[in-house]
C-alpha cells in the first residue's frame, strides 16, 4: 500500500520539477530586457563563422534561439567566445578612404550596424559568406516575422558628430569655391579673346 503511494508521489515530483533547459531560457529574461532597452539588436555584430561542433545540444536548441535574434546573440556570448571579435577587413568601412579619420570610420560602422532599414525587403545580406550561410539556415519561416520587425526598426542612418559634419561641409564648400574660381578663370579667358 505504501509502495504504490510512494511511487505515485515520486512520479508526481518528477513531473512537477522544472527541467534544466527551461530554467536556462528563463534566466535570459533580464538580459533580454536590457537588450530590448537598447532597441537595437545587433546580430550582425556577432555573426561569426559557425563555432566548432563541440556541443551536441547546440543544433537542437539553435532553431529556437535563432528565431529570436537577441537570444542567439546572448548564446554566442555565453559560449565564452569574444563577442567583440574583430571585424574582418572586408567589413570595416572606409578602411582605404584617404579623407576619413579612423574614429569616423569606427563611429560610422558602429552606427550603421545598429540601424536597419525600414524597407520590407528580406534581410540585407550580411558581410560574410559564413553569415549568409547562417542566415540561410534560418529557413523561410523566419522571413515573415523578420519583415514585420524590419518595418518597425529605425531607419538606416549615419552616426556622425556635428564636428565631423561641419568638417566635411567645409571641405565641400572649399571644393565649390575652387570650382567657381576655375569657372571664373575660364570666363575671363573667354572674355579676353
Amino acid at each position, binding site marked *: 500500500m505504501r509502495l504504490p503511494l510512494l511511487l505515485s508521489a515520486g512520479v508526481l515530483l518528477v513531473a512537477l520539477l522544472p527541467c534544466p533547459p527551461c530554467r536556462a531560457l528563463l534566466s535570459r529574461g533580464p538580459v533580454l530586457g536590457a537588450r530590448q532597452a537598447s532597441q537595437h539588436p545587433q546580430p550582425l555584430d556577432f555573426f561569426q563563422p559557425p563555432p566548432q561542433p563541440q556541443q551536441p545540444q547546440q543544433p537542437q536548441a539553435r532553431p529556437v534561439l535563432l528565431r529570436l535574434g537577441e537570444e542567439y546573440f546572448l548564446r554566442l556570448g555565453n559560449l565564452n567566445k569574444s563577442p567583440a571579435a574583430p571585424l574582418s577587413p572586408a567589413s570595416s568601412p572606409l*578602411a582605404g578612404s584617404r579623407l576619413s579619420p579612423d574614429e569616423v570610420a569606427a563611429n560610422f560602422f558602429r552606427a550603421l*550596424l545598429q540601424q536597419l532599414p525600414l524597407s520590407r525587403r528580406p534581410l540585407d545580406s550580411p558581410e560574410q559568406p559564413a553569415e549568409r550561410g547562417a542566415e540561410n539556415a534560418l529557413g523561410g519561416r523566419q522571413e515573415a516575422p523578420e519583415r514585420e520587425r524590419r518595418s518597425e526598426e529605425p531607419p538606416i542612418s*549615419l552616426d556622425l558628430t556635428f564636428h565631423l559634419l561641419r568638417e566635411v*561641409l567645409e571641405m565641400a564648400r572649399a571644393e565649390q569655391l575652387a570650382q567657381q574660381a576655375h569657372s571664373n578663370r575660364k570666363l575671363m579667358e573667354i572674355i579676353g579673346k
Partner: protein
Amino acid sequence: MAPTFKLRCHFILICLMALRGESRYLELREAVDQDPFLLFSANLKRELAGGQLYRRALRCLDMLSLQGQFTFTADRPQLHCAAFFIAEPEEFITIHYDLVSIDCEGGDFLKVFDGWILKGEKFPSSQDHPLPTTERYIDFCESGLSRRSIRSSQNVAMVFFRVHEPGNGFTLTIKTDPNLFPCNVISQTPNGRFTLVVPHQHRNCSFSIIYPVVIKISDLTLGHLNGLQLKLHLTKYLIDRAKSSTGCGGIGDFVELLGGTGLDPSKMTPLADLCYPFRGPAQMKIGCDNTVVRLVSSGKHINRVTFEYRQLEPYEMENPSGNSIQEFCLSSL
C-alpha cells in the same frame, strides 16, 4: 467727381490693395548673387556651357555642394557608405542615375533619402515633411530605373550605398532646380542672411544652422496684423517642459527659436517664441550645436521672417553677454 477720375481712383485703390499683402513678392538677390552669365550673349554662353559639367570620383563618405557627375567605384567591398548633398537654400536637388552596376541580390543597395538623417534624427522632421519616413527612402533595388531622377523636397538630400564586389559602382548626376519658396533649409555657412516666406501655406518651415550662432531677427510679418507690440517669451527648458510644447499658446502663426544637439527640430528645445510681428532687430546668442528658426503657419496668412546670423566666436561662448541662452547647450560645447 468726374467718372474718369473716379475710375482712376478705384484703379489706384485696387493696385494698392493688391500690393499690400495679397500679392506674392520675391526677395531679389543682391547683384553679387546674380548669374554673371546673364550679361553675355548666347554664343558666349554656349562656349562657356560646353564642357562645364564637373566630374569627379565619389568617396565612401562624401559631401557635395555643387552640381556635376560623380562616380563611385568600389576598389574593395565598401559596406557602409553615405554621401551628403547640400544646395543653396533656394534650390532643390535632383539626383539622376546615369549608370548603376550593383548586385542587389548579393546584398548591395543604393538608397536616396529625402533630407539628412544623422544618429537617427531626420531633417526635416517627420512633422515638417510631406512624406512619411518610409517613403523618404527611395531604394534603387526596389524601384530600379523607374525612378531614375529623384528630386528632393528641400536643399538637402543624401544617399546610402553598399557595394560588395570590387569594380561595381554607380554614376550620379547632381543638378539643382530653383525653389521659389524654400521651406526647410540647412545653411551651408555659419554666417548669412535669409528671409523665410510662407505664403498661405499650412506648413511649418525650419531654417537650420549647424553652428552656435548669434541670430538677429530684423523683420517679422505674421498675417495682416500690423501691431507694434512685441511679445518675446524667453522659455526656460526646465520650467516650461511640463507645459504645452506649442509656442505662443498654440494660437495663431508664430516663429520659434530652437536649440539642440541633434538634427531633428522636433527634438530640440524651444528657446524663444515670437508671437507678434515687429520691425527692428531682436538679437539672441544661442550656443547650441544646432540652431533652428521655425515658422509655424496656419495657411491663413502670408508670413515672413528675416534674420541674420553669424558664428559665435569662442570667446563669446566663454563670456556670455547680452541676451543669450547658452546654459541649455553647455554640455555640447
